[in-house]
């Protein structure tokens, strides 16, 4: 049976990738299971300069999911290149560096640095909802996204994934703009901008007021977005959004995804990554799937 899939020349041993921001740089989860069993790991979101992230509550349980407002706390691209990559290279899996930014200059400088480093792919986050001034702004308007992706494309020698926000004005137009601007692949969706209020304190739960919603609650909408985008673009798509089971993985792949990312489920079950790989093998056997690539985009 074949579980491996290929995105722009990079082969994943299976289509399961740990989603950025939920998995650190892989080290912690590797204490629980061998993370080399995963198809890939997308690093904690990196920015040009180190960031402390947001104050106050950062994670919050919601019906069928959770909200987060971590605010891209990270050691910065330089420290990642110096220390982080070597640690991640201990794992036999595709190394994706996820990068966010505050300005066009940040994105271009960061991409230039990462492009020279020992990473397999660059995932450009134009969609973080939790960083003021910039962050999500790049992910809302297709024309703004086109500019930043074009600029990064010019300096990026690695396969370039652009991670899309479901908060985009029009996700299909956004996807097409990124494809035209040179993205080699798209990953979608990031978290949905959402809100929670502490009625006793009469204040928002999060200091930033809004935060990103993830988990099962967003799965059907994410699936619809992946499907609509896959019908229009020609580059491979990585599906993300409340994927908890092997059945969910097949659904996203039938909708057109070449691979998937798992995020929130890691918190519900810290062994989820390993269990999903095992369960996917079993499910494909049950469903009579010889090669997982057969089912990509059949719907």
């Amino acid at each position, binding site marked *: 049976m074949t579980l491996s899939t290929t995105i722009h020349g990079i082969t994943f041993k299976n289509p399961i990738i740990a989603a950025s921001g939920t998995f*650190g740089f892989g080290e912690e989860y590797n204490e629980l299971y061998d993370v080399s069993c995963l198809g890939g790991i997308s690093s904690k979101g990196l920015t040009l300069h180190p960031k402390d*992230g947001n104050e106050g509550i*950062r*994670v*919050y349980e919601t019906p069928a999911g959770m909200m987060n407002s*971590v605010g891209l706390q990270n050691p910065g691209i330089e420290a990642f290149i110096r220390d982080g990559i070597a640690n991640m290279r201990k794992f036999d899996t595709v190394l994706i560096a996820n990068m966010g930014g505050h300005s066009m200059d940040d994105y271009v400088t960061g991409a230039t640095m990462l492009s020279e480093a020992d990473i397999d792919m660059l995932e450009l986050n134009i969609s973080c909802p939790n960083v003021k001034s910039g962050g999500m702004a790049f992910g809302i308007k297709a024309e703004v996204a086109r500019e930043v992706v074009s600029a990064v494309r010019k300096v990026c020698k690695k396969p370039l994934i652009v991670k899309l926000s479901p908060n985009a004005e029009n996700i299909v137009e956004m996807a097409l703009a990124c494809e035209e601007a040179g993205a080699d692949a798209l990953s979608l969706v990031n978290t949905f901008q959402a809100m929670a209020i502490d009625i006793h304190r009469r204040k928002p739960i999060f200091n930033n007021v809004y935060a990103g919603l993830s988990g099962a609650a967003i799965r059907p909408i994410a699936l619809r977005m992946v499907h609509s985008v896959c019908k229009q673009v020609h580059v491979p798509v990585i599906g993300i959004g409340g994927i908890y089971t092997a059945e969910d993985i097949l659904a996203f792949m039938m909708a057109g995804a070449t691979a998937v990312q798992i995020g929130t489920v890691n*918190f*519900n079950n810290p062994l989820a990554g390993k269990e999903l790989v095992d369960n996917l093998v079993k499910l494909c056997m049950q469903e009579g799937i010889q090669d997982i690539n057969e089912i990509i985009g059949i719907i």
Partner: protein
Amino acid sequence: MEYFDSIVLAQFQLTEDIFVLTVERKGAPAAAGQFFMLKCWDRELTLMRPISIFEAEEDTLSFMYRVVGEGTRKLAELKAGDTISLLGALGTGYPIGEMHGKVALVGGGLGIPPLCQTAKELTQHGVQVDAYIGFRDQLFAVEDFEPHCQSIFISTETGSEGYKGFITDLLKPEQYDAVFTCGPEVMMRKVAALCAEKQTACWCSMEHRMACGIGACLGCSIRTTEGMKRVCKDGPVFPSKIIF
């Protein structure tokens, strides 16, 4: 750190909203001041719940917790024989091995239970322990401290038992080689200030909402004088001088 299923051995209701859950330890490591992530649901709730170790015996682990929301409400419904998932032991606990002489434990509210295991381990390490435990009104867990402490000081805000007022009113840090504190932030801040004044070393245990519990998601980071620290991994116990 391990992720494993265990069996509930007992559940006691101590007060209207405080419970003690005892489960099979199954060989899991556990030290004073550490915690476990617990869950007794599949997907009905997303996140596991961090609960500190109240007592770690050879074959059992106990958790004393207050029902504050849906997760702890589900934990409180568990009965002997039920299955529960645990991830742990997690985090950095109290520096028991570095202690000598006399140590004061200062706890308030649900910061009291983790100090019970701490008292036990300090005593086993040959350190003399005094406990200062402050309640709003109703006492709990006092008898669990008795075998491990030389003196126990009690306060209640209502004056129903012991000293009427805050437990920090009773603490004289200069009498101790170190102070360990766990409880409401306002209390720990006061303990840290008293210790700083008398140059007594002080460690505090921080509480935070968390998602992964193992240091990956950065959902529980707090600002310290040494930069951002993860409550779940670098803590929950920190030298108070870097926090307050």
